[in-house]
Structure formats: structure tokens, C-alpha cells
């Protein structure tokens, strides 16, 4: 019984691809095998369009313990401590069912981290929605936010930060990227590579139901009017079971019974078993009658393709089953031996005493198609925007407009739905430049930040790619952390389109260049293509999640200004780049022009200088300058502390609008005591860092003489309005 052309297409495979399958099998495939191939060969699992480009990324240096290729990246932060982290997208499922889509996204990324032997210590996310006026946005926003909170809160991992952006490019295709960060002993990291023949393959966790069958295929298909019909594939998350699974796995990991462990993520049992076997260059044989099922009469096809959540596959050392089972019994979780490793190098599935599938592992993994898709060079916008009425606008009005816009409004409405404190190691919550999480019972911490700049990337993919890496680096520096490594989630449109593929290739070039220059390797990541609806692709949106280390907890810096009379210095040169700025977007609805240039030499030099000043105890608070420019960054510092600022007018740049709202890169604001002024200036001069005095801390009033005069409570008022109004809260 061979498969039909229709079935092949329904599985998202091209006819040429099926031909290749036939060659690899040496025969026609049956339906079950076709399903397995489609799951393994789709974009989401095989990275067929991105693989050759991802290879170019820098992934190694002295602190990298495990780069891309495992469930998550692992870095060394000194002593015996390792940090395990990864970011992953759940865009398509979240658009269909925002609560469950976002919740299961969080669940999936947590499993990627704890499969490696790490206790998750923090969650972050990057979420992008369409314009607030779009009729779908509010519901999606509410659903995603409560889904993220609902899952993380229940498992008891603090959600400590992230970013949220609105842009009409996401009207029909939102982005939900979740990042998890875990802590492990660097000598006790667990991997997915199988070893040894005739070892037990054990299924643990929830039972298998008919959830999300073809979910992985869905993630690789663009939406159209018929997407409604794909609805039943939504998976429902069970954070309670996740918590049990987490504790049970970590308990089992205390001794040496696990040879290999792999979560069942996209393409469930299929991808987890194939991945283990493929990495170990072994075969695997499963008895599907043993798979714990939730519903009666589930078929082998359904079992192999189900994406039921909260499940794991283990390979155990001989004679360890009994002890291991005790642990899973304690936590009320299924624990069933469903197969064994073999030396056949094949995936063999048996059901009702019949062999129902028999596929060479290589055919599913190494031999999966790899495409060098054609791409066209982007045409970066070069012409600067000319705004006639630029000087007619009042600086005070422009600031208020930006502070009260959806993209710059205070995000408490969201973050108050996330438990940010549970585990009692959160030193800095969301709202500042990076979240800071203490390493449990130690005197050190890590800092984490997640960033993206879709508008910049659209205008000039390569510059945009560089810019996000740098902005992320800056955010870590601003809290006093030494940036160590990143994970990335590459959200793009349809790779079969030349322009989209071009954006991808060029963004990646920018990312690569910046990472190499800053010695900031990429240790894990995820690619999400086909973010496209009715042939309209989203703006290229690479998201960077960076991790840094703070070796001494006394040296954590935040954006809270501390004391009246203190000085605020700006580090880095201000030219006044207004194109693509929040200023032009919020005041003139102009989304044009080139993004600000990145000078990697200055970037690194400025950052390292700030870090040195922090180490020398010369900085009392710090903030990087990003969207909105100097004035918005200063306002953010004031709103945090409740202290005002007396802001000086620029000495050189005569166009005040350009000075206060320009988005030149590589800049920071630092607060110093006047007593340390000459010391700080000397260090900066010695390191060839450009700096200037921009403001002085004072009580209560945020002002520029004769230009702007606002009370801090007014700033709060404007900054706090939007979410409340949008959600009809009084």
C-alpha cells in the first residue's frame, strides 16, 4: 500500500522530496513512515533552509561548554557553575490559541533546559503583536500574557523580563519567543546522545494524546484563510505535570543512571528517538503497544506524531530501572520501558507484534534535505528623511508623545501578571536594562536581556543584525555584567522568497560580525520561518537573548538615580541620527530612512570602559541609550527613582531635536558622584572614550531650562496611561 501524491502534499513534502525518501528506503513508504519523514524533514526540525547559513556563526570560545546542537547551550561562569539557556519560538500556535500557544511555548523551553541537568532559574520572553488598533491584537495580547504567566507562575520559575512590541507588520502573525535559563553543575551536564546497545529506552511524563498532531508541520506552513481548519492541533499545557517532571528528572539526575535524555518537543516521540539514535550512531526499536496513551485506540501514526506536552525519553544504564521508577512513582508520573537501543542504525517500530515502520536513522537525520535557497541582496535605505516641520514640534510634547505610546509605555500591566520573585534570587526584576538573578546561595549573579529591532533590520538587515547584538551587549554592561554568550531566535517570512532569504542571510552576517568582534558566541537558538500570512511576510525579526556574569553581587548597577547633586555623564558620541527613531515614528508616523550605524570598535571600547568604571565603584546608576534617545533614557531613570534631573543643553549640536531624540548607537548614561568627577574623566580620556555632561540629579523636577519642565509624577502619569486605557481599566 503506497502513499498518494495528495497524502505527500498534505504532509508538506514536495514530490521531489518524496522521491528522495523512496530512494533512501529502497521502496515506497507507508503512511506512518511518511508521517515520520514529514515530521523530521520539515523546516522546523530539519533547518533545511537555514542550516548552511547557521554554520557560519561563531559558536565557540573559552567559556562555551556546549554550543548549538543540543537541547540548549551551556556556558561556564566560574567555580563549578554552568548556565544553560535557549530561546524558542511558538509563533504559529500562539496566533491560533494565544493562551495555550504561549503556555506550551514556555513549557517546551523549560524542558529544553532541564533535560540538560539544569534547574531553571529564570524565564524571559520576546513578544510582538500587530498594531493595537487591529481588531485581533487585544485578545492575542491578553491571551499570550496570561499564558506565559499561567505556565511559569505555576511551575514556580520567575519570569523576570523580556520585551513587547507593537508593529502592524505582525497584524496577522504575532511572535511569541520564550527563553529559559537554568543553572547546573558544569560536571553534571546531561546530553541527548545515546550510548550502548540493548539499553532500555524509557518513556516518562504525561500520557500521549491526540494533541498537536502535525504541529511541527504547521509551524512550517504559512497561514491562509483556511488556517481555522488547523485548529484542533492545539496542544494544552499542564504546568502542574511539568513541575513534577522537572523535580523527578532532577532527582534522578543526582546519580549516574541516565545515559541520554531528550524532551519530546516538536514531532514528539519521533524526533526525540531519532535524535538520540542519530547522535549516538545507533538504532532504536520501540514497541508502540507500550506507549502510555490517554485515549483508546490510538494508532501508531498518532503516537509517533503526537505533540502531547510534558513528556521525556530516557536511556538508562543497566539495572537502574527499579530505582528510577521509584522516583517517578513518587511524583505520580508514568515510567515505562518502551524499547531498546540496537546496532541496526534503524528506527524500527512494532505494533501488535508486527513491524510497522523500518527506516534508516541516517535517512531521517543526516540525509534530510538541505537547501541553499537563492536570495537577493537587500537594498538598504540610504536616503535620510527630511522633515519640514521638525523644529515646530515642542520637545516637551514630543517626549510626552513617546512616553505615552504603546511601545514605550510602562509595562507593569504585563509584568504584574508574572511572578518575578519566586525562588527568591531575583535581584533585579524587569523594567531595567537586564534582569539580574543571583546564583543560589552564592555571591555572584547572572544578567539576562532579550532584544530585537525589526524596523532597523527591515531598513538594513546587516546593520540591524549588528545593532541588536550590540544593544543586547550594552544592556548587560549597564547592570555591571560581563557579557558572555547569546542565544537567538530568527523570526522571518517565507524562505522560498528571494527577498526574505536575502534578509535572513544579511541579518545573520551582521549578527556574526558583531558576535565575532565582541567575542560573544552563539550557543543555541531557533529559526522560525514562514511567518507570513496571505503572502505578506513579517519584517525580519531576529531576537537576541544574552547572558552575562556579575562576579560580585556588590557591583550590581541599576537605572535608579541615587542622589541629588550627582552628575549624569553620557558615554559615546551623539550625532543625532533621527531616521527610524521613536521620535519620527510617534510624532510624524515616519518609518523611513537608514538605521543608525554601528561602529564596533567604539561599541566595544565604550562598553568595556563603562564596565571598568562600575568595577571600580565609580558608577551609581547606569542606563543604555536606545529607542527614544537621550531624553527618553533620562526620563526612564527619573521615573524609576522618583528623583528629577536638570538637563543641560548641548554645547555643540545646535539642533536640539536631533540631540535629544537621536538614536546613535554605543551610548550609555552613567550617574557619578561629583567627588569622583576627575577620576572618572581621567579613565575615560585614557581609554579614548568620548563623554560629556548631560544632567545633574535634583529633586522632583525633570527639566531643561526654558524648554521642558515636568514633575516626576507627570512623567509617571503619561507613561502609565496606555495599557489601562487599552484594557478599559479605570
Amino acid at each position, binding site marked *: 500500500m503506497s502513499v498518494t501524491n495528495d497524502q505527500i502534499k498534505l504532509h508538506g513534502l514536495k514530490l521531489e522530496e518524496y522521491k528522495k525518501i523512496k530512494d533512501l528506503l529502497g521502496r515506497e513508504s507507508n503512511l506512518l513512515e511518511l508521517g515520520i519523514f514529514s515530521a523530521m524533514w520539515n523546516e522546523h526540525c530539519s533547518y533545511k533552509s537555514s542550516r548552511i547559513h547557521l554554520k557560519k556563526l561563531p559558536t565557540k570560545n573559552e567559556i562555551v561548554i556546549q554550543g548549538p546542537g543540543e537541547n540548549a547551550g551551556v556556558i561556564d561562569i566560574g567555580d563549578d557553575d554552568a548556565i544553560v539557556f535557549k530561546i524558542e519560538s511558538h509563533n504559529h500556535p500562539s496566533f491560533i490559541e494565544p493562551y495555550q500557544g504561549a503556555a506550551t511555548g514556555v513549557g517546551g523551553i523549560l524542558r529544553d533546559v532541564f533535560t540538560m541537568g539544569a534547574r531553571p532559574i529564570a524565564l524571559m520572553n520576546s513578544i510582538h503583536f500587530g498594531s493595537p488598533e487591529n481588531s485581533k491584537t487585544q485578545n492575542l495580547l491578553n491571551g499570550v500574557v496570561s499564558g506565559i504567566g499561567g505556565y511559569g507562575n505555576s511551575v514556580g520559575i520567575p519570569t523576570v523580563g523580556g520585551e513587547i512590541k507593537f508593529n502592524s507588520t505582525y497584524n496577522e502573525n504575532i511572535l511569541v519567543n520564550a527563553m529559559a535559563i537554568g543553572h547546573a553543575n558544569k560536571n553534571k551536564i546531561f546530553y541527548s546522545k545515546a550510548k550502548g546497545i540493548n539499553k532500555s529506552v524509557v518513556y516518562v511524563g504525561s500520557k500521549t494524546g491526540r494533541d498537536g498532531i502535525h504541529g511541527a508541520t504547521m509551524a512550517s506552513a504559512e497561514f491562509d484563510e483556511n488556517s481555522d481548519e488547523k485548529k484542533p492541533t492545539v*496542544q494544552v499545557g499542564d504546568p502542574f505535570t511539568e513541575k513534577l517532571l522537572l523535580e523527578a528528572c532532577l532527582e534522578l539526575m543526582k546519580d549516574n543512571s541516565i545515559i541520554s535524555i531528550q524532551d519530546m518537543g516538536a514531532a514528539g516521540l519521533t524526533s526525540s528517538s531519532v535524535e538520540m539514535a542519530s547522535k549516538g550512531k545507533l538504532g532504536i526499536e520501540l514497541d508502540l503497544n507500550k506507549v502510555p496513551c490517554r485515549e483508546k485506540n490510538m494508532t501508531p501514526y498518532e503516537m509517533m506524531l503526537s505533540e502531547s506536552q510534558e513528556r521525556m525519553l530516557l536511556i538508562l544504564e543497566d539495572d537502574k530501572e527499579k530505582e528510577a521508577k521509584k522516583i517517578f512513582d513518587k511524583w505520580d508520573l508514568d515510567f515505562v520501558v518502551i524499547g531498546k537501543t540496537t546496532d541496526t542504525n534503524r528506527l524500527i517500530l512494532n505494533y501488535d507484534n508486527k513491524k510497522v515502520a523500518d527506516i534508516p536513522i541516517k535517512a531521517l537525520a543526516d540525509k534530510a534535505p538541505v537547501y541553499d535557497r537563492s536570495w537577493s541582496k537587500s537594498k538598504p535605505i540610504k536616503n535620510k528623511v527630511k522633515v519640514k516641520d521638525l523644529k515646530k514640534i515642542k520637545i516637551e510634547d514630543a517626549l510626552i508623545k513617546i512616553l505615552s505610546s504603546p511601545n514605550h509605555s510602562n509595562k507593569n500591566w504585563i509584568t504584574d501578571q508574572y511572578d518575578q520573585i519566586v525562588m527568591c534570587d531575583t535581584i533585579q526584576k524587569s523594567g531595567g536594562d537586564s534582569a539580574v538573578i543571583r546564583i543560589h546561595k552564592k555571591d555572584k549573579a547572572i544578567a539576562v536581556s532579550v532584544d530585537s529591532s525589526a524596523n532597523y533590520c527591515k531598513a538594513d538587515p546587516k546593520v540591524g543584525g549588528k545593532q541588536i547584538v550590540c544593544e543586547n551587549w550594552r544592556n548587560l554592561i549597564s547592570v555591571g555584567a560581563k557579557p558572555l554568550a547569546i542565544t537567538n531566535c530568527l523570526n522571518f517570512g517565507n524562505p522560498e522568497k528571494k527577498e526574505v532569504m536575502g534578509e535572513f542571510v544579511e541579518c545573520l552576517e551582521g549578527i556574526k560580525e558583531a558576535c565575532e568582534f565582541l567575542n560573544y558566541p552563539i550557543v543555541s537558538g531557533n529559526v522560525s520561518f514562514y511567518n507570513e500570512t496571505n503572502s505578506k511576510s513579517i519584517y525580519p525579526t531576529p531576537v537576541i537573548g544574552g547572558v552575562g556574569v556579575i562576579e560580585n553581587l556588590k557591583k550590581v548597577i541599576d537605572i535608579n538615580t541615587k542622589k541629588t547633586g550627582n552628575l549624569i555623564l553620557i558615554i559615546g558620541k551623539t550625532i543625532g541620527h533621527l531616521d527610524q527613531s521613536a521620535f519620527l515614528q510617534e510624532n510624524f508616523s515616519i518609518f523611513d530612512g537608514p538605521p543608525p550605524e554601528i561602529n564596533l570598535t567604539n561599541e566595544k571600547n565604550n562598553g568595556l570602559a563603562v564596565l571598568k568604571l562600575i568595577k571600580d565603584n565609580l558608577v551609581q546608576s547606569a542606563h543604555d541609550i536606545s529607542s527614544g534617545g537621550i531624553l527618553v533614557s533620562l526620563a526612564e531613570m527619573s521615573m524609576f527613582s522618583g528623583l528629577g534631573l536638570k538637563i543641560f543643553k548641548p554645547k555643540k549640536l545646535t539642533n536640539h531635536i536631533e540631540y535629544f531624540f537621536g538614536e546613535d548607537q554605543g551610548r550609555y548614561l552613567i550617574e557619578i558622584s561629583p567627588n569622583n568627577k576627575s577620576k572618572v574623566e581621567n579613565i575615560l580620556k585614557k581609554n579614548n572614550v568620548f563623554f560629556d555632561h548631560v544632567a545633574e540629579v535634583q529633586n522632583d523636577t525633570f527639566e531643561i531650562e526654558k524648554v521642558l519642565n515636568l514633575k516626576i509624577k507627570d512623567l509617571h502619569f503619561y507613561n502609565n496611561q496606555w495599557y489601562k486605557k487599552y484594557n478599559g481599566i479605570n
Partner: protein
Amino acid sequence: MKFEVTVTLKKDVLDPQGKVVSQTLKNIGIKNLTQVRQGKYFEIDVDEKDSSKAIDQVKEMCEKLLVNQIIEDFKIKKAG
């Protein structure tokens, strides 16, 4: 006019609550229990005398807010 609306998870959709509830019932000694599935229940009172119009209104409420039709089904019944 009063209505009773029951909202249940679609068949095959995981019901984490029902699962835990039925396990707990077994643990505290309830026998013969095959399955529990948990749903929502609404009592809705509308100020409309025409019964078919009223039902339409309740249906609209379900579709617009009360029910997540991607994973849930619903039933409307006139209250005794």
C-alpha cells in the same frame, strides 16, 4: 429568561484538571470511577421575552466571550 450554559473541552483535548480530580477521588477511596472531565457552567439571565431571540443572544455571548471554540464546545439550555 434564564439559561444554563455548559462549556466542555472538546473530545481528545487534554483536561489536566479532570485528570487530577479523578486521581484524587480514587486516592480518597471512591471506587468504580471511570472518568471525570471538568468544564464550566454559566447561569445567564436575559431580559428578553422572545425565547428564540433570547437563545440567539446567549449564543452570541458564548461565541464572543464565554467559549474558546478552538478547544471547547458548548450547550445552551433554557432553565427549568
